[in-house]
């Protein structure tokens, strides 16, 4: 039968290591407040570990802290600190391998190499955890939540800061990342590769070293996320590299050096996004085909769209451009004059990057104006035929 085992200074067990060892599959272990040293605690049977407020598991800076190697393990409410740091092993506060249905809930992880590292698992839940660190350099830090070769995972309501990547997914399919908040990480807020059929909804990515990078994935849905203040010379809100058949819907991009950097991505729909006060709102480079940008807001960006070639196979229709100066005589809500979002200067900068030193000089304003009046250099078909007169809410 399922039993409940308590761990505290003067209970049956004084250390979770002992309790885990003697527990039978399906038992619940309640850990009272206090600090327990348990470097490399291996859990090989389905157990429920619940930490009371103030229950701290200490890895003593030398190993993984918890190793979950069985299905249906629940780890909830702990404060987990001091995993080892290594340049050859991915030490983590919570490490799971080959599991199914593991739940990692409401833990606080601090001062660890990796936060939560899950490999070859499926159907797990990672919810409400806080992972924090004091990473300064990429090569000396691990990721907050790192999933590798997983599927059907739920990553919800986690907060990650001060790590290398906030959330890193590699070969993770059919999974959802919802309402997470990653900020002030050294590298990316969210980073995923080779991960298909995933959804990213209601997340906030703020002030990360290089923003969010998503690469080599198909059938991705990114909805209602906020990409804020990823500002730096090599930083962007969202980098889409080799992404196919995705949806980017209703996201907010605010104050990023580069709002969306689209590189070799095709058949992606961008709808209802708001891009505000970015350096470049959208930069398109490489072979990007049949992407559709509709009903987006472009407000106060230094450059709205930047292209590195004269060829264009993407459509921009019915967006709101704050720099649009046309009129709407027939009052159908769409401007009667088409809008050309690529400025001549952004075209020149793409060809000769050094010319950026002329940014905000009077001459540049003049040539932009003359190009606007009679386009000669920017792609002819890169036009919004029906620019919206009103901002989308």
């Amino acid at each position: 039968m399922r039993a409940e085992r308590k761990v505290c200074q003067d209970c049956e067990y004084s250390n979770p290591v002992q309790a885990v060892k003697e527990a039978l599959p399906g038992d619940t272990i309640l850990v009272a407040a206090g600090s327990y040293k348990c470097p490399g605690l291996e859990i090989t049977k389905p157990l429920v570990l619940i930490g009371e407020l103030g229950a701290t598991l200490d890895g003593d800076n030398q190993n993984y802290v918890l190793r979950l190697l069985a299905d249906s393990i629940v780890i909830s409410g702990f404060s987990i600190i001091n995993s080892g740091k290594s340049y050859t092993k991915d030490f983590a506060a919570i490490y799971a391998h080959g599991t199914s249905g593991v739940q990692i809930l409401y833990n606080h992880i601090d001062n660890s190499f990796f936060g939560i590292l899950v490999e070859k698992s499926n159907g797990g839940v990672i919810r409400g955890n806080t992972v924090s660190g004091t990473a300064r350099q990429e090569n000396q830090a691990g990721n907050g939540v790192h999933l590798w070769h997983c599927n059907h995972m739920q990553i919800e309501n986690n907060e990650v800061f001060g790590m290398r990547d906030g959330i890193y997914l590699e070969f993770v399919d059919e999974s959802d990342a919802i309402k997470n908040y990653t900020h002030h990480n050294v590298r990316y807020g969210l980073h995923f590769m080779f991960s298909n059929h995933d959804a990213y909804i209601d997340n906030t990515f703020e002030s990360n070293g290089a923003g969010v990078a998503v690469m080599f994935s198909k059938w991705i849905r990114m909805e209602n996320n906020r990409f804020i203040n990823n500002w730096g010379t090599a930083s962007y809100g969202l980098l889409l590299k080799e992404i196919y058949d995705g949806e980017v819907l209703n996201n907010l991009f605010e104050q990023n050096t580069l709002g969306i950097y689209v590189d070799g991505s095709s058949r992606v729909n961008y709808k209802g996004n708001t891009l505000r006060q970015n350096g470049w709102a959208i930069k398109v480079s490489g072979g990007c085909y049949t992407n559709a940008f509709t009903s987006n807001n472009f407000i106060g960006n230094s450059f709205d769209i930047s292209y590195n070639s004269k060829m264009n196979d993407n459509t921009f229709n019915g967006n709101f451009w704050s720099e649009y100066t046309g009129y709407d005589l027939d009052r159908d809500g769409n401007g009667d004059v088409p809008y050309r979002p690529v400025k001549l200067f952004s075209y020149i900068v793409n060809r000769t990057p050094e010319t950026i030193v002329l940014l905000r000089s009077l001459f540049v304003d003049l040539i932009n104006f003359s190009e606007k009046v009679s386009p000669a250099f920017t792609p002819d078909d890169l036009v919004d035929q029906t620019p919206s007169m009103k901002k989308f809410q």
Partner: protein
Amino acid sequence: MIKIFKYSFSDLMRSRWSFIYLGFYMLLGFVLLFLNNDLSKGIITLMNVIVVLTPMIGTIFGVMYFYNSREFTELLLAQPVKRSVIFLGQYLGISISLAMSLIIGLGIPFLVYGVFRSGEIFNFLLLLIAGGFLTFIFVAISVCIALFNANKIKGFGYAILMWLFFAVIYDGLVLLSMMVFADYPLDDFALLVSFLNPIDLSRIMILLKLDISALLGYTGALFQRFFGTNLGFVMSWLMLVIWTCVPVLLMVRIANKKNF
């Protein structure tokens, strides 16, 4: 010299143009801050205006004042005063009154919006100092042009052309040459050409101090590295000082030789 400076200064004050100029900047500052309420953004927009406008106003005022006060100058020349003193006094009268209009006119709105309590104070000061330098430089050049040309129309034409060259044409030439020589490494060239034009130099010095510098990418990083060092810092201010001194010395030289 102090006496002549005082005369010119009070003459400009009496003509009210200094006040109109001051009022314009005050209005500009208030409107900008009212519209976006963000000091940093306000400074960026202001920079656009200042690097174009202060040279233009300096140029026009310089030429205009010199031609206008020609009779007074001739009267002074008849007195036992050194020529260099007369012209330096007048020059300082114009440029200091213009610079004061700029500094007070922009200072008041930004003070009201609390520039001292924000981290932008240094950027703002940099902006004012750069604007001040541009005023001194362009007044000096325009007085030189006026001294060279007795014909008012010609003088005005040259002065406007000079402003146009530094504000617009120069950048156009730079852009053109950069595009033509795109296959060569251009970073040092970019650094050099921006040094040779006081307007570009001030623009870049201010840009690099603001958030927007991140847009400058690799070239910006190179600039940052140069301007960030003590050498770059000293060099760029020295360049502005040279840009001020050379036309002033030229002005004194012409004035000493000129046959009135």
